[in-house]
């Protein structure tokens, strides 16, 4: 089983990583320090490891890292920071949608994917869009509220041009920083 150098583009940064073929995207991301991507069930049931692959929400535990080469990978941390949270993250905090927090990054990613195609979802549509994300604290009511709150705020801010720019500015460009190949990080396959 030969490892090879794979370029993963995560939250606008390109990482050249030496990876074995049986390393999942989840494992590669966590080993690179993207620990906001959580390892829950490792079988696609819980959604805690959700990331966006070219804007499409997927379970990173069911993607081989080699398969993600060439795709734009976005994690929860890539949407916003503590100082400049994304409106989804802000709404999750405001609505009390975060209890233990383990499911939150995946919930935020699933929400981002939903709102990208549906700016005004009904509660049923929200529940359907998040149906692959489990919250073991069972705080679903507040999570649905948070998604609705985000949608309302974004719709309101899209009416005022200054604040819609504010959101756009928060998402980083595709290649902020490119690591050269001597920065190759080795990621183990036996964790």
């Amino acid at each position, binding site marked *: 089983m030969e490892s090879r150098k794979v370029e993963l583009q995560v939250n606008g940064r390109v990482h050249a990583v030496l990876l074995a073929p049986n390393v999942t995207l989840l494992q590669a991301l966590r080993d690179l320090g993207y620990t906001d991507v959580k390892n829950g069930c490792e079988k696609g049931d819980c959604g805690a490891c959700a990331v966006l692959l070219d804007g499409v*929400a997927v379970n990173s535990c069911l993607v081989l890292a080699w398969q993600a080469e060439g795709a734009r990978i976005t994690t929860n941390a890539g949407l916003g920071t503590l100082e400049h949270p994304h409106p989804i993250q802000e709404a999750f905090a405001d609505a009390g949608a975060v209890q233990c927090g383990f499911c939150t990054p995946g919930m935020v990613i699933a929400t981002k994917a939903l709102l990208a195609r549906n700016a005004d979802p009904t509660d049923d549509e929200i529940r*359907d869009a998040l*149906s692959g994300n489990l919250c073991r604290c069972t705080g679903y009511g507040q999570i649905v509220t948070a998604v609705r709150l985000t949608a309302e705020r974004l719709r309101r801010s899209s009416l005022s041009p200054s604040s819609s720019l504010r959101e756009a500015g928060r998402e980083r460009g595709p290649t902020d920083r490119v690591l050269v190949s001597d920065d190759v990080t080795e990621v183990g396959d036996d964790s």
Partner: protein
Amino acid sequence: MSLPAFELLQPGTLSKALKLLDETPTAVPIAGGTCLLVDLRRRAASADVLLDLSRVQELRRIEIADGKLVIGATVTIAKLLASPAVERCAGVLREACKTFAAPLVRNRATIGGNLVHASPAADTAPPLLLLDAAVELQAHGRKRLMPLARFFAGPCETRLRRGYLLTAVRIPVLEGTPRWAYEKLRLRNANAISVVSVAALTVPTGDGPPEVRIAIGAVAPIPIRARDAEEALRGTELTERAIVTAAKIAAEEARPIDDIRGSSGYRRREVEVLVRRCLSRLMKSDGGETDGE
């Protein structure tokens, strides 16, 4: 548990993929990986070599050609849901996709993967059986078509020969305005394997009563058409009485097992209920509109 060791081949074209499969016939194709990676991780499947199809553009097409809706093997369930051609020509397939796992899985899982995995509860199978779909199988320099009804050989077993790849699903586009109904009994709304699924379709036949087709899933070693029930309805109008009789016959055709999701007796009873429900809806809808609710 981590994944077992394997080699990963990543061809960029179909011809390259078929050549690699010819050279390494034991290679196991992977596309969405939503079943295979789970099975590999819990050591329910093994593979020394995986053949990654996710870079093969030719397998991702949806097109209408020669009166057939042709769906490439690695078209995802999410893409099926978003396709106007699927909505127009295979509404019942689209309906089944709505309850397939959950959105995150639907974004990766593929139609070919669902069929090759050949679970008796495969969500895309009953609608495709109903539509008389065929699968296109290709090996290096060879190509053949097989009716989907012949493709399934047993629980998680197919008649796909070594060296062959399922490359597309071909669905005859029906004339007129077929109507359909679909029911999936499941224990929860999302990420649920069906306990029983029933798909039914009526095809206009000109002057006579419409042809009625019924397919059932998760109640036999493979997804099946309820041929005896269809036969009982041949040449007759759908009446309440005919529906009750046909539903009983369909329940007799089922060969369900007991498992964690339900007993065989419960499943057989539910086949009768769901077939009756589907056919009653088809009897009541008099327009050309498809009726999924």
